[in-house]
């Protein structure tokens, strides 16, 4: 029997204080962003800017295509059961920017692929003037977004599909569809996926928002003439001219509008009668070979994805210790630790990254636990859209509001301001990660503890939190990884006075310091992976399963 979540420990006053502590900066930031967009001349200059329309088209093209491909690949992989979860944490831990930098090292005209094929297959003895990265069609950007969003969508889908009640029900329904004449593949597309898709609404919205509005990845691998609208907005926001700043804010709002329209259109498309007709048009003859080949293809997609990640991480690792490396040699002439010495020499950067991530993840986790413990369930439901707002608002718009908040509260260019910005960014991820396990906790255990004479704190400290240790540790690791990956808030709220490994990696990617860029990007991946590994170790059950 599935137990309903009851919160005998609900404490509305405490929950109110918790909500106020987060809602105040969130609403303030939102209002700041709204105010920044209420500038008629800025809108006029935005609409008359010759770059706007093409940049908007590029944003829509790259954002929509990458979100669609990521969704389709996720559905394709989920068709056949795999032992997916063990692969997802290390893939999820790779920050988008680090992945983009690594992919550039693989795809660039002087990158690994062309070196491996030259000169024997291509005849090239110098890097060709090809746009294999930062291509005008945004294909590199699309590739990064698809490769990064598929693990996230898989993780979100599996969080639902691996619930014992859901898994058993779905398995039975698919089996039933087989007995009605459907192949495994047909059963999945008509019975399984239509029921999973509505559960992915929030993650899909987050993916769409991210893909349409991403800045750091687009700076590394996206088109440049013109760039996507998010990058253009970011460039305008950094301009010394206040009028250009206002135009940047208007561009950010335009992106938010496009996101809203796209989300609405996609939602309507999902509900189109066409799909219902496809579900019910009856089954055609199917064969055992079809089921077998689809299983192979599904495993192939997953293997290809994992291979790309391995290639990217290898490229970053080797790139970070590369010395003299003339084209088309596959192996560098010399190896050097100079880049790593530079990284370790800039200890302030590493320290800023670590303390920010630790402080943000700790506070986000503590707040989330307190909120889930004390807030009545209907409060949790109703405030969810507000608390997850940073996930779906374009980042470039969000930082405008955050900057205004920091200015108003005197936190601009301070560590406290940076910590607040990172905490607000981590919080929705930590909340979404912990919400399921925490609210699904068997409420009867609280009653058992009470009947044994234990108070609420003893129950929390000795029963509930130890049992939820794995989920708590994983949520902390997610918060840590989100903080490490922050680019725009760090630059904008910190006004360039605070460098983290992410800001260094992205800024260096535009220059020619290949080894140093790779070292920072590798570190950008290594830090979250270490914390994920530590979280997995700390969260491991003391009981060994036979």
């Amino acid at each position, binding site marked *: 029997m599935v137990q309903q979540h009851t919160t005998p420990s609900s404490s509305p006053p405490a929950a109110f204080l918790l909500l106020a502590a987060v809602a105040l900066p969130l609403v303030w930031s939102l209002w700041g962003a709204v105010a920044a967009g209420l500038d008629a001349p800025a809108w006029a200059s935005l609409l008359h800017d010759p770059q706007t329309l093409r940049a908007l088209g590029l944003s829509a093209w790259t954002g929509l295509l990458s979100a669609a491909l990521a969704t389709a690949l996720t559905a394709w992989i989920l068709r056949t059961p795999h032992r997916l979860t063990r692969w997802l944490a290390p893939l999820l831990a790779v920050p988008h920017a680090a992945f983009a930098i690594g992919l550039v090292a693989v795809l660039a005209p002087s990158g690994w692929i062309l070196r491996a094929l030259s000169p024997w297959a291509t005849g090239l003895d110098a890097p060709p003037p090809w746009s294999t990265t930062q291509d005008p069609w945004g294909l590199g950007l699309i590739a990064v977004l698809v490769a990064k969003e598929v693990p996230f969508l898989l993780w979100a889908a599996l969080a639902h599909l691996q619930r014992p009640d859901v898994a058993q029900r779905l398995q*039975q329904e698919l089996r039933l*569809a087989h*007995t*009605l004449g459907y192949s495994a593949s047909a059963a999945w597309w008509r*019975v399984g996926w239509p*029921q999973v898709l509505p559960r992915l609404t929030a993650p899909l919205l987050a993916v769409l928002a991210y893909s349409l509005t991403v800045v750091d990845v687009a700076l590394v691998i996206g088109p440049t003439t013109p760039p996507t609208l998010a990058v253009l907005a970011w460039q305008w926001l950094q301009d010394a001219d206040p009028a250009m700043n206002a135009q940047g804010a208007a561009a950010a709002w335009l992106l938010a509008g496009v996101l809203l329209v796209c989300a609405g259109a996609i939602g309507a498309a999902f509900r189109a009668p066409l799909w219902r007709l496809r579900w019910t*048009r*009856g*089954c055609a003859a199917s064969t*055992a070979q079809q089921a077998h080949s689809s299983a192979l293809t599904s495993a192939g997609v997953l293997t290809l994805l994992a291979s790309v990640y391995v290639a990217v991480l290898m490229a970053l690792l080797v790139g970070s210790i590369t010395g003299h490396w003339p084209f088309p040699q596959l192996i560098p002439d010399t190896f050097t630790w100079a880049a790593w010495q530079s990284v370790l020499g800039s200890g302030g950067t590493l320290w800023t990254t670590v303390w920010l991530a630790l402080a943000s993840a700790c506070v986000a986790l503590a707040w989330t636990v307190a909120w889930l413990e004390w807030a009545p369930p209907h409060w949790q439901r109703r405030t969810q859209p507000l608390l997850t707002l940073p996930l779906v608002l374009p980042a470039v718009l969000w930082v405008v509001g955050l900057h205004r908040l920091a200015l108003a509260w005197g936190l601009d260019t301070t560590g406290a301001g940076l910590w607040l910005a990172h905490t607000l960014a981590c919080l929705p991820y930590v909340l979404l990660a912990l919400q399921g396990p925490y609210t699904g906790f068997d409420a009867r255990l609280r009653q058992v503890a009470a009947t044994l004479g234990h108070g609420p704190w003893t129950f929390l400290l000795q029963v509930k939190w130890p049992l939820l240790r794995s989920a708590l540790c994983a949520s902390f690791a997610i918060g840590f990884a989100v903080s490490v990956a922050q680019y725009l808030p760090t630059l904008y709220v910190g006004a360039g006075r605070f460098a983290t490994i992410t800001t260094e990696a992205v800024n260096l990617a535009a220059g020619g310091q290949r080894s140093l860029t790779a070292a920072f990007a590798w570190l950008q991946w290594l830090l979250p992976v270490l914390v994920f590994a530590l979280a997995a170790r700390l969260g491991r059950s003391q009981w060994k399963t036979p």
Partner: protein
Amino acid sequence: MSLHVHIARLATPASTLVSGLSLTIAPGTVHTLMGDSGSGKSSVLAAICGTLAPELVFEGEVQLDGVHIDALPTQARRVGILFQEDLLFAHMTVRENLLFAVPRGVQADREAQVQQALVDVEMSAYLHANPATLSGGQRARVALARALLARPRALLLDEPFSKLDTALRERMRTLVFALVKARAIPALLVTHDAADIADPALCTHLQQRGQ
């Protein structure tokens, strides 16, 4: 159309669940399989319709009208099944759930079959209903209609009445047995309840291994 099942051995990696079981079920009759929990009743049904878990070993044969079907994939066997749970698809209406089961063909004919199936189970007023709004008994009848719309050559019943209250259970049992007889297909019913037995002469008890 008769169903013949011979199970020389049905086993998990750790133990044998069923051995030496032979059943021949005539068209229009319901054979009952009884036994304790863990005696392998549901695994027998899974072996017949081809949904046996990969870790289970099946040695034996399944024939429909003398034709071996045990090498066919589940979707090609045309053996229908009703589970304890109705398993109506939540994203489809009653009509869509039923259309899902009707083989591809002329749409008007398919719609007519759906409407007739609902008449057969006395649910014609619920064509466009959302399954979530139906009672347990109504859902069970829609599930029965769906199973029969696929034109199965045999029907397996995996404790389909166990979640219904006494009155509904009796009504549903009568309906199922009548439809099996009308369609002249063999049916194998797994149950814990002796009241479900259609014909005491057509009943097999599975013993839990080691007892």
